[in-house]
């Protein structure tokens, strides 16, 4: 996390890779939720542990997303969709000019 903070908000290859890793880890962990739960089967407070695991990973993911947002990698602004804005249809036609 500290490294993340130190990396700053500029986009270059290392911070980008780190953010990717940061996002990917919790995702992977969430994917393997069932196996983790299996490993926890012996435990008595299974549900709570599972919940903590889930929340922790979610938190990690949210942090990664926040980092993405801070780096400006998420298309949340209208400027990101500008290229897809269709030109407005014209309602009137005009023509003419200097009298010939």
């Amino acid at each position, binding site marked *: 996390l500290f490294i993340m903070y130190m990396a700053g908000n500029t986009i270059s290859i290392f911070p980008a890779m780190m953010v990717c890793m940061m996002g990917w880890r919790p995702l992977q962990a969430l994917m393997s939720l069932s196996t983790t739960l299996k490993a926890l089967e012996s435990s008595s407070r299974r549900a709570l542990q599972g919940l903590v695991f889930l929340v922790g990973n979610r938190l990690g993911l949210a942090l990664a997303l926040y980092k993405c947002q801070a780096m*400006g990698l998420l298309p949340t*602004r*209208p*400027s*990101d969709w*500008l*290229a897809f*804005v*269709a*030109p*407005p*249809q*014209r*309602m*009137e*036609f*005009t*023509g*003419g*000019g*200097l*009298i*010939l």
Partner: protein
Amino acid sequence: RQQYVGKLRFASLEASQGSKKLIVATEKNVVAALNSRSGEILWRHVDKGTPEGAIDAMLIHGQDAITVSNAGRILRSWETNIGGLNWETSLDTGSFQMASLVGLQDVVKYVAVLKKAAVSLHYLSNGHQKWVEHLPESESTQYQLLYSHGTGVIHVLGIVPQSHLNVLTFSVEDGEITNQMRVAAPWLKSLNGGCSVVGEAVLVCMDMDTHSLYVCSLETEPEMKQIPLQSLDLEFADGFQPRILATQPNVVSASRTQFFLQLSPSHFSLLQYKHGLLSHLRDFQQAALVSFATTGEKTVAAVLTCRSELKSGSSDGLHAGSTLENSRKQDSLTCSNQTYNINLYLVETGQRLLDTTITFNLEQSGAKPQQLYIQVFLKKDDSVGYRALVQTEDHMLMFLQQPGKVVWSREESLAEVVSLEMVDLPLTGAQAELEGEFGKKADGLLGMFLKRLSSQLILLQAWTAHLWKMFYDARKPRSQIKNEINIDNLARDEFNLQKMMVMVTASGKLFGIESSSGTIVWKQYLRNVRPGCSFKLMVQRTTAHFPHPPQCTLLVKDKETKMSFLYVFNPIFGKRSQVVPPVLKRPVLQTLLLPIMDQDYAKVLLLIDDEYKVTAFPATKNVLRQLEEIAHSIFFYLVDAEQGKLSGFRLKKDLTTEESWEVIIPTDVQRIVSVKGKRSNEHVHSQGRVMGDRSVLYKSLNPNLLAVVTESTDTHHERTFIGIYLIDGVTGRIIHSSVQKKAKGPVHIVHSENWVVYQYWNTKARRNEFTVLELYEGTEQYNATAFSSLDRPILPQVLQQSYIFPSAISAMEATITERGITSRHLLIGLPSGAILSLPKALLDPRRPEIPTEQSREENLIPYSPDVQIHAERFINYNQTVSRMTGIYTAPSGLESTCLVVAYGLDIYQTRVYPSKQFDVLKDDYDYVLISSVLFGLVFATMITKRLAQVKLLNRAWR
């Protein structure tokens, strides 16, 4: 690039057989030498395009060509071989009348220039003035003629209209008046045209009222002798100002005693005045043009006549607009079959010389010859041979050789292009077949399948034929392969980079020019177009709608009669279209090309006349119904520059209009110079600009916006100003107006997307300046789906900035591309003939004075007031375009590429890539390496797969 010289004013052909050049001075203020073998320009000097550069006279002596230009202000001598300037002197002011070479004892040493109040003599070798003499009584007397014939005196003829002639005789040596005569001539109004000097200083004049010739010797008798024309069995035609054409083959000897008398537009007669006797040598009925030429001792007269039966007056041939027919009545003569003969006649006797007939045909152009110049030479057997230079009405120069062979021809009307459009070339036959298949209605699955198979087969056939041709061509040496372009093999290329340029020239001739090679594919002369017409060219149907031919419409409006007509033609082949345009009874004020189409895919053209009624073309039922539906959204704007009035009209369902707005710009303070709307085929890809903080600044893209430029009528440099008004064409709302104080025109303006760039002369700082205006809606878009001028509550924000430009400019245009993704450049034609491609990003009103973090994020260049001309931004390198009048841009099939045509005296076509060629692989793209790597990798994977299998198998065995 193609170079032209313009319509001839003076021409001179050298009189020896081996000479290769002819010197011309044209109405475009150009002095040039043409190669008489090929018609190419040997050298060319372009003077100012204004009347200041106008060439008033040209005299040829040996290797020197003397020109008088700028209303007699400047005398120049050119070396005709290489076109160098021998000398140049400036003369005193005073309106120029005539210049003439003066010789003394068989040597031509001086050139004499006659002005309104003075006559001066200059040395031919260095241009120094020998003497200048003021003419007596120059207030009342108009001095118009100058004559000398090697006797050491110069005769100057002045006239007091309806009273008498003043004949002054100057001595060449010191400019003293040796003799002064006063000849009573109460009938004479002007010396030009009606009078001429023949023989040994004998003045011949003619009088319309008494139908007689007057003869007077300048040296001896102070009286006019009257010779009635009836004694020669000749008569003047009514209403025609007769002319006398005489010749003086050598300035040191006397003029020929023979002269032509033009009695009517098509009637000449050859007369002789010798020893006080006037005799009639030969009569030429139905001659169009006559000309004299001399070689050695012989002087011949060339007469241009019609070949067969003739018909005088107008023949309303293939052209529309019978309203203009009346104006053609005075024409010299029209040959019914457009075939002309040139014959030579010996001047002394009027005999026809044998074997001297040139026959030529002008069938294709339908234009009449206008000027005739003859180059005569003696053949080895002492007979006379000649070549003829003919200029026709449509400014075409033809150089003819015996017997009727056209050595070369030049289309000089292309020196004055008024309107230009680029049209896509048609698809090839096979492609068209494929297109046609999709165009037709479906008729069953099987039928469609069969059709598809057959068209694929045709494609295959065409491809194999193409391959075969390539193979065949490859065996031939390269020099033999010529890229011949004719109408049959005109086809669109892969990226639509070649187009057909349809050019309308001021002489009324239309050209179709293939853009990549510049070959003239077709030409068409509109016969009933008079000079000074205004043209408007519109493309009604492009080549995209295959079974229907493309269609262009030209609106021609006569300046004097105010009547107009439509000419509809096929822009690819130049043929007149079958479609009958409506006959326009009222003068048309403006046109509007609507995007709606009739069932034949022709765009609808609306013409508004001076009663503000609208005519639609084509006017089918379908169109009228569509028009009725959308009539409420069609608006016209008319700009009357004379009254300073802008007015808007709304179309009603019955095709009448009602005025909806009016803006008056008072004419006593300022006058409207130009009005620029947006180009209808312009696409804007991006609707806004991304700011540094990643919000969007939306562009205000009003398609109805007009930019109106006014200039002040007061031209004093302290008070002069220009005004810019941005007006909505639908509502008449003034969106922005600004007045630039201490600024002067000519204003060049470009209006595109959401910006306007204009250029003017700053009189205070004495420099050229650009100002750029950009319109933005702000960070919110009012209505993102539809744009209506009637519903715009918020005025756009206007940003502006000015820049200093180091040069004056002669033309300006913005690049345009197919989809508008490519960044825009401004193409600026400089007076030096170069075309500068200036990125629009340099003229951006958001350029900050102090760069901040955000502006850097936005890639804004910090503001610097001067825009520099970098020579590497010239798109035409050394191919300068003289006296550029306009630049035309057209999109090509490639998004990165924009086609540019610059026209003026020359025509230049090129492609520009404003954002580099981002959609084209580079020339040095390594196909071999990349494909070999690819294949190698595929091969390697296959091998490793195989190896892995073997290994697995081995392990399994173990």
